[in-house]
């Protein structure tokens, strides 16, 4: 995307490639292909096969059960609840953390002296170990004397059971999710903005779009297109894969209120030992992530041609 516009695009016609070049290419590609097959395709096929069996973790035998696990999955109230929670979580965390990330990026880049400080401050949550941070959140959100509740009480509001009230718990996790992801998104947007050629802004200002909203809609936003697409995809995938906060803070409770897909998968496989059903959930999860990735690649190819 950063190639100069006047550079001729050279696409080698496959008919021009000599046989020895082909074999060299094959040799050079071999390590990547080998790793891809052993680390990705073989294990994924293993999961696919296991999803068709009644295998229990650690037991010696198993039987082929066809699509029973998928049927069980789609009729299992617990899985459907977990899927709903996941979608609500993604539907909240992704848009907020993307828009907030964009807003912060613009504000930080417009800042002069303290730019580096702000970047670091908002990026810190990304570098912190989330399990340790989750424990810190637990202290902050303590129902009686956590800092947040003390502040609420000081302002005259009722104290809340942030992590144990079934009506609030999921949104508490979503808030922590936004806190965790917004810094990463901000950084990506900042990187994207630094790629925008300065002369485009000069041209825009000659055309009268000197500052503020018009400058943003005319130059910044269109040129951030590819980056935005990348941010959307990665945020959706990361939000969909949320696991740590559930495992550390709520264990999916109370009464399944914060159960999410990866946590359900983990419990089915490693607490209930039902590998068949867990494999079926994995396949569904893989399908979702793969669909997003393919969508991204296709859209990316179409839109990444601004500069």
């Amino acid at each position, binding site marked *: 995307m950063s190639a100069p516009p006047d550079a001729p695009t050279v696409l080698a016609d496959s008919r021009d490639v000599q046989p020895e070049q082909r074999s060299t290419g094959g040799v050079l590609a071999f390590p990547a292909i080998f790793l891809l097959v052993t680390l990705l395709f073989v294990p994924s096929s293993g999961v696919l096969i296991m999803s068709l069996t009644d295998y229990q973790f650690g*037991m010696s035998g198993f039987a082929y059960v066809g699509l029973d696990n998928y049927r069980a999955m789609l009729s299992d109230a617990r899985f459907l609840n977990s899927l709903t929670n996941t979608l609500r979580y993604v539907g909240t965390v992704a848009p907020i953390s993307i828009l907030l990330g964009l807003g912060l990026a613009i504000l930080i880049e417009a800042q002069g002296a303290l730019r580096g400080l702000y970047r670091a401050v908002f990026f810190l949550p990304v570098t912190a170990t989330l399990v340790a941070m989750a424990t810190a959140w637990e202290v902050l959100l303590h129902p009686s004397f956590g800092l947040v509740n003390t502040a609420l009480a000081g302002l005259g509001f009722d104290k809340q*059971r942030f*992590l*144990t009230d*079934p009506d609030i718990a999921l949104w508490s996790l979503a808030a922590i999710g936004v806190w965790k992801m917004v810094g990463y998104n901000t950084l990506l947007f900042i990187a994207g903005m630094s790629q925008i050629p300065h002369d485009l802004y000069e041209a825009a200002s000659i055309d009268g779009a000197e500052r503020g909203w018009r400058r943003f809609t005319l130059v910044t936003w269109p040129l951030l297109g590819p980056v935005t697409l990348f941010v959307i995809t990665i945020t959706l995938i990361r939000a969909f894969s949320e696991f740590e906060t559930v495992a550390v803070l709520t264990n999916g*409770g*109370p009464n399944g209120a914060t159960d999410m897909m990866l946590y359900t998968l983990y419990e089915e496989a*490693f*607490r209930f*030992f039902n590998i068949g059903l867990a494999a079926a959930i994995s396949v569904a999860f893989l399908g979702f992530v793969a669909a997003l990735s393919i969508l991204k690649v296709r859209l990316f190819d179409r839109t990444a041609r601004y500069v």
Partner: protein
Amino acid sequence: MKHIPTLTGIALLAAGPALAETTLTVYHAWPHHAEWQTQIAEEFMVQNPDVQIEFQAPSPDYDEGLVSVIRQNMAGDPPDIFMVGSHLLGDLVAREMVEPLDDLIGDTDMNAQGYTDEVLAFTQIDGVQYGLPWTSSTPVMFYNAELVEQAGGDPDNMPTTWDDTIALAADIDALGEDIMGMYYTPGDDDWMTQNLLASAGLAPISEDGSIAFNTETGEQAIALFERFHDEGGQTAISNNDGRQQMYAGKLGLYYNSTAAVRSFDREIGDRFEWGTAQMPRMVDEGGVAAGGMAAVILTDDPEKRQAAWDYLLYGTGAEAQAFVVQNTGYMPVNSGAIDELSAFYEDHPQFKTSAEQTDRAYPWFGWPGQNGARISQIVLDEMASIANDQQSAKDAAAALSEKISAQLPD
């Protein structure tokens, strides 16, 4: 030449481990247990220089320990000795990972060694001895003596029935906006719910095969949890939060395993007077559910099995058990330890309560079949729904009976 003695010393040190002919790997749960587990092993190695004990990094809880051991077993290299929550013993047996101890027990009279039949039953499956109990506990009532007094109660004479206990909790709760009357932890599995049933004189499944939640008494036992919230002032917070509330002196009564006694001792210190009392009863013959971990031998090697058996006998012997009790709050599994502990119990009465109620202890119930962990989760979820007013105890009891019977083997 003055270096020679030092060098000899180093050589001797280096030769130390080489004396060991048998190496045993031990895997236990709970990282905060590592200290006393290691000390038992060190003492054992002093007495048995031909055996070397090595520890794997402890698992964070029983469930993850079990997963890890199953994985290690699939890879063909399980630890030689494993400490598992005794309710999970059935999972090891179903996977044929553990052999009965008959060959090692032989003609030994275990009763004469200080192991009562009740204690041995904790680690039996269908009457077969698969392990020895390494620790043992029952839940107790922890109380903040100052709050109890302020509410008009007598710390030396705590209530023995749930009705009186709930009334006391209500009085404590009324002491102030920031004070909570009671907190009965739902726990990480169904153990604390088993305790509610036990206080009503019920095992989760009775001898005629009926599920306790499906009986009127069982329903009343579940309704206790509803009354804790409606009448006793309990709020549906997490166990961690409840403990912090207790340590802060803002909670009147707290219910959990006696294994927490040592932590209470450390966290509260002299800040306020506290104590433990026996678990209240719902009916006169009400009991408590015992818990704890089983030590099992996973190795097949005859020589290692013998060494591991020696280690099990040492760790569950009078001396080591007295040491465990003082460092945790657990009860001794060996009756020989009671004598050694008499002076300690005199000075630390909070540690003694659990041992005083063992005559009414039920074993930690493991659900038959392969769905024990799932049933535990069902119980936790339904109890959470009671705590959060999502459904009545009556509906929860009905849901429990229905969902659990669907998970039990036919």
